[in-house]
């Protein structure tokens, strides 16, 4: 914190009003809130993040925090979740090696990167998504004097933290408790004590090779980077730190931090409302939470969860595994979640038009349905669209019942080539 505020001390006392927009969650209509009528967009609502420089950070109010503790935690979660969580179980001396070679009092030399995963129904439909974090143990860090490891705790188990959809947190806990049986796992809601933050945008996404925050990378004397200071600056004094988002590099950094504190490296004028983060995800076509990914209905592979590192295909059995593995290895995924842009007939961004979620995307000429809008905000949205029609159909796409709205489907740049090629071959042979 010290090193950081040296650089930004001028900004430190500024009121945090620059990018603040009135919190208006009503503006973010989503798939399931059927009663939400399209309404006038908030005038302060961000329109695009293209011209924003520097990384933005926001507190994710839509995410709550759960703590898992107990000797059976890893085994329990491994049997339920779509991703391999064993990487979070390492003992001292293993783990991913960090670029910094010098451990600092507040940060580890090695850490386990967070794991994104989902809980499915036995039939393979999406229920909840979780990002799992393993906070460092005191015994794995240097103590305050820097001369030795911190006090070792008596318990053998390492607690895990997960950020989950806040609106369904209690339901998720009930569901997990139903599966608990005799497993020695304690789960509790820690949303009061901890909050989830995301740091994204600006030049973060360009630095794909760097594992660190760009602001942290600038720490050090001219011409060199102070690796120790860098790793110290990314975390706070309790060891809570920014991690690279496990889904995509372009989503930036994510982390859990004690609530009512601002995470390290968040500039006061770059702290924004959650809508900015939604906008950023809309541009990338990444849905998050059980509202954007309809609970109980969504097929995980259609929502690109495999490409977002949520699914391990070699971990063994988990709930819903049969359906996911079969579709992945044998089937073709015809529909995928893609970013949508709503324009008017003159190809201008249809700002005045407000497309409601659940609207049908249709081919204008044939009036054939090609997809559904799942999330919409202003002229941007996401929808589950047939890849073939969207990318190779060539026809104009519109919204059923909205004569003057045209839909542009954008292929996100993070998509693997196979996803498109598979469809291309199909449409070529057809």
């Amino acid at each position, binding site marked *: 914190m010290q090193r950081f505020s040296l650089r930004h001390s001028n900004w430190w006392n500024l009121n945090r009003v620059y990018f603040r927009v009135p919190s208006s969650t009503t503006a973010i209509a989503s798939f399931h809130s059927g009663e939400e009528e399209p309404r006038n967009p908030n005038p302060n609502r961000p329109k695009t993040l293209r011209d924003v420089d520097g990384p933005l950070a926001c507190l994710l109010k839509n995410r709550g925090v759960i703590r898992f503790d107990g000797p059976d935690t890893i085994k*329990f979660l491994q*049997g339920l979740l779509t991703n391999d969580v064993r990487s979070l179980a390492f003992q001292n001396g293993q783990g991913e090696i960090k670029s910094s070679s010098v451990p600092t009092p507040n940060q580890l030399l090695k850490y386990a990167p967070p794991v994104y995963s989902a809980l499915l129904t*036995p039939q393979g439909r999406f229920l909840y998504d979780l990002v799992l974090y393993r906070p460092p143990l005191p015994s794995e860090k240097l103590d305050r004097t820097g001369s030795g490891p911190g006090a070792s705790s008596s318990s053998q188990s390492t607690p895990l933290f997960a950020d989950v959809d806040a609106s369904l947190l209690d339901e998720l806990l009930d569901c997990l408790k139903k599966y608990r049986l005799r497993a020695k796992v304690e789960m509790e809601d820690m949303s009061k004590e901890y909050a989830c933050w995301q740091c994204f945008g600006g030049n973060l996404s360009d630095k794909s090779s760097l594992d660190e925050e760009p602001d942290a990378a600038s720490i050090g004397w001219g011409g060199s980077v102070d690796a120790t200071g860098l790793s110290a600056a990314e975390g706070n004094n309790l060891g809570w730190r920014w991690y690279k988002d496990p889904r995509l590099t372009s989503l930036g950094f994510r982390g859990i931090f004690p609530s009512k504190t601002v995470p390290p490296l968040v500039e006061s004028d770059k702290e924004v409302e959650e809508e900015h983060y939604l906008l950023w995800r809309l541009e990338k076509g990444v849905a998050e939470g059980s509202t954007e990914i309809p609970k109980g209905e969504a097929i995980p592979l259609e929502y690109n969860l495999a490409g977002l590192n949520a699914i391990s295909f070699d971990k063994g059995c988990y709930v819903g595994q049969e359906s996911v593995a079969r579709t992945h290895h044998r089937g073709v995924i015809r529909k995928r979640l893609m970013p949508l842009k709503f324009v008017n007939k003159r190809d201008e961004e249809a700002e005045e038009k407000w497309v409601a979620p659940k609207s049908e995307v249709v081919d204008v000429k044939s009036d054939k349905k090609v997809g559904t809008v799942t999330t919409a905000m202003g002229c941007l949205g996401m929808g589950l669209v047939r890849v073939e029609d969207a990318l190779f159909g060539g026809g104009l796409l519109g919204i059923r019942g909205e004569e003057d709205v045209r839909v542009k489907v954008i292929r996100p740049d993070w998509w693997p080539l196979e996803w498109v090629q598979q469809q291309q071959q199909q449409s070529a042979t057809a």
Partner: protein
Amino acid sequence: MPFLSHSTPLPPSLLFHQKNYSQQESSKPEDAIHLTENCIRRMRELHAKEISGGEQMLRLSVETGGCSGFQYVFLLDDMQNPDDRVFEKDGVKLVVDNISYDFVKGSTVDYVEELIRSAFQLFSSKKWIGV
């Protein structure tokens, strides 16, 4: 004993029998867990091989995991816990803890020898419901 560590998804019909974990409920005869002749014979063989001489019990427990969410596991155990239910037939003991019992009541434990594997298996006498 490698064949014992194999875990198998719980038969779907049993997934819907999870009730309140009512311990007071007296076990009705139809809720008892039955052992087949094969199962008893195999347990006797295992007892005969046992060098320590202690009569080991067959422990059946249900745990989380598997494609449908729950799976059953067989273990040989010589400890009996306070919350265990014991089913005995011809000197062979099967122990099931109370929470697992709610899932498996009324079913039958068999020992099958197939080319692919030889293992204890759980059969539900109730009609199977397709998933």
